[in-house]
């Protein structure tokens, strides 16, 4: 398979230089254009896999260029990421409606651009691409973004088998697979045997209690292997071992899970450590409506990440031409903090983007009080960042099922 081609359309050579520098470690073909008109020409000639498009440019600006790209049957399917300093709500909405795939606000970091592009194409490290394609294929340095419904493989390195067992149980409902090793000495050959295979772990959870700084040495060994470079490592530690925790963070462990493990939170904490898109767990399409189903047992971590990731998800609806969202709370009988945050932030996002919403549930007498509940809980620290999406505390209409909700739009 040929390397992905990325077209950068910007009138600033500084931006071209920074983007080119950012992608240097990856096996990609970069092409450049200095305004919208030139961008159209280059896009037609080169047929890039992704276009990074500035807004304010001479000759033809990014908005006009985007319109022409989307009107051309041979170019309309190329995903476009806008890269602009103009991030006002109105501007974002206008551009989102034109079919832009993503939006990066300047100032930006190279890592941010790479991360967004890697959601659309698989980026392989350059060094590994030609001499050892198998290794490159396994290298997760910047591969296509994973989602929470993927079959995630978790390696647990812990001297206590009960830890791996309880983790396996906690993640089983997501369909994720746990394998375990009792220590670094066993884990190293195990990982080496999985390189360039389907069995390479996606995340490794390591006890920090191994003697002789075993967890830190293990981290360094894993990082020395370029094919394993992008795998997140998480430390497992008792709450009181703060010295070990700090040392692990300084070494590069991306998160610490303290024991006893809060098993209800574990799947979402693993998803966060892997930067997984969790929205496919909650969102589906039904006719001309999008549906988000939120369960009563939504975890605190899940609530925070669902609220954060819903911003992009709902903006994507606009791009895809959807304007209706059904919030399905079947099985929900009371609002706790994670639920209030998730539901209110999703409604707030819909309001901002002019998406109509309806709530479905089987406990209408409790659910209809959401505006009053939000209003009284806004001062709680956990909700202090929440925008109240309700103008009054009047009860909401709750629909008995999705069909009734869809018919009411």
């Amino acid at each position: 398979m040929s390397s992905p081609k990325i077209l950068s359309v910007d009138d600033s050579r500084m931006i071209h230089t920074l983007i080119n520098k950012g992608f240097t470690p990856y096996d990609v073909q970069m092409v450049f254009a200095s305004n919208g008109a030139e961008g159209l020409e280059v896009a037609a000639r080169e047929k890039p896999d992704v276009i990074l498009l500035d807004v304010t440019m001479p000759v033809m600006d990014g908005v006009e260029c985007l319109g022409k790209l989307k009107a051309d049957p041979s170019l309309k399917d190329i995903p476009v990421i806008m890269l602009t300093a103009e991030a006002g709500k109105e501007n974002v909405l206008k551009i989102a409606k034109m079919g832009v795939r993503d939006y990066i606000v300047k100032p930006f970091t190279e890592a941010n651009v790479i991360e967004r592009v890697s959601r659309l194409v698989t980026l392989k490290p350059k060094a590994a691409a030609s001499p050892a394609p198998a290794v490159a294929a396994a290298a997760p340095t910047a591969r296509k973004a994973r989602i929470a419904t993927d079959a995630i493989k978790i390696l647990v390195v812990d001297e206590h088998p009960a830890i791996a067992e309880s983790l396996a149980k906690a993640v089983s409902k997501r369909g994720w697979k746990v394998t375990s090793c009792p220590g670094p000495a066993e884990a190293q050959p195990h990982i080496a045997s999985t390189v360039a295979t389907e069995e390479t772990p996606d995340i490794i959870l390591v006890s920090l209690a191994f003697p002789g700084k075993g967890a830190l040495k293990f981290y360094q060994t894993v990082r020395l292997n370029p094919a394993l470079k992008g795998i997140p490592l998480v430390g497992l530690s008792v709450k009181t071992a703060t010295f070990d925790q700090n040392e692990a963070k300084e070494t590069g462990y991306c998160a610490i899970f303290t024991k006893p493990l809060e098993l209800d939170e574990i799947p979402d904490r693993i998803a966060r450590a892997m930067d997984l898109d969790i929205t496919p767990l909650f969102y589906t399409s039904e006719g001309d409506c999008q549906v988000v189903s939120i369960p009563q047992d939504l975890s605190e971590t899940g609530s925070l990440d669902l609220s954060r990731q819903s911003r992009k998800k709902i903006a994507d609806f606009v791009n895809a031409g959807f304007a209706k969202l059904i919030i399905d709370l079947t099985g929900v009988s009371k609002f706790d903090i994670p639920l209030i945050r998730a539901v209110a932030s999703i409604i707030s996002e819909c309001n901002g983007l002019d998406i109509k919403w309806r709530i479905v549930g089987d406990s209408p007498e409790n659910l209809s009080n959401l505006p009053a509940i939000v209003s009284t809980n806004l001062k709680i620290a956990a909700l202090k960042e929440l925008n109240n999406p309700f103008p009054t505390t009047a009860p909401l209409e709750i629909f008995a099922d999705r069909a009734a909700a869809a018919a009411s739009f």
Partner: protein
Amino acid sequence: MPNSEKPGSALFIQTIDRYVPEVMQTMVGLSATPATGLANYPQPSKLEGITGAIGLSGKVNGVVYTAYSDSLGKHVAEKILGGSAGEQEISDVVAELTNMITGNLKSCLCDLGYNCALSIPSVMRGEEITVSARNATICVGNSYAIEGSKDSLKVLVFAAIEN
């Protein structure tokens, strides 16, 4: 629809004090420490070295200037590009950084209901660049100490808000 409260000098100062350090830190990797912003910046004002300028037109009409000494412009451009920078590269960096600061200011104004369009950035060089805006009701500016340079970056905004 514009919000009932018109953006005042304090909002412009707060906005540039937020975005100048953010742009410098994120794009250049240098800290930019603001001095105390002036709400009645004297005009006409004299700038020297390299000045980036971007016009705002719409419900807000005006100009944003960012002024670098020659050595500061070179320092910033070389840091961002990772190698030696000639006159053209320095101008390009100054233009783009001005664009980022002004774009973020524009976004704040638009979210308040004061929609405006940005011009393409222009870059001027000279010993005595005089800037003023006769009808401006907003004349604000601030200086930012840039890490690794004895010179400060000056950012001025002269603007009139439509009623």
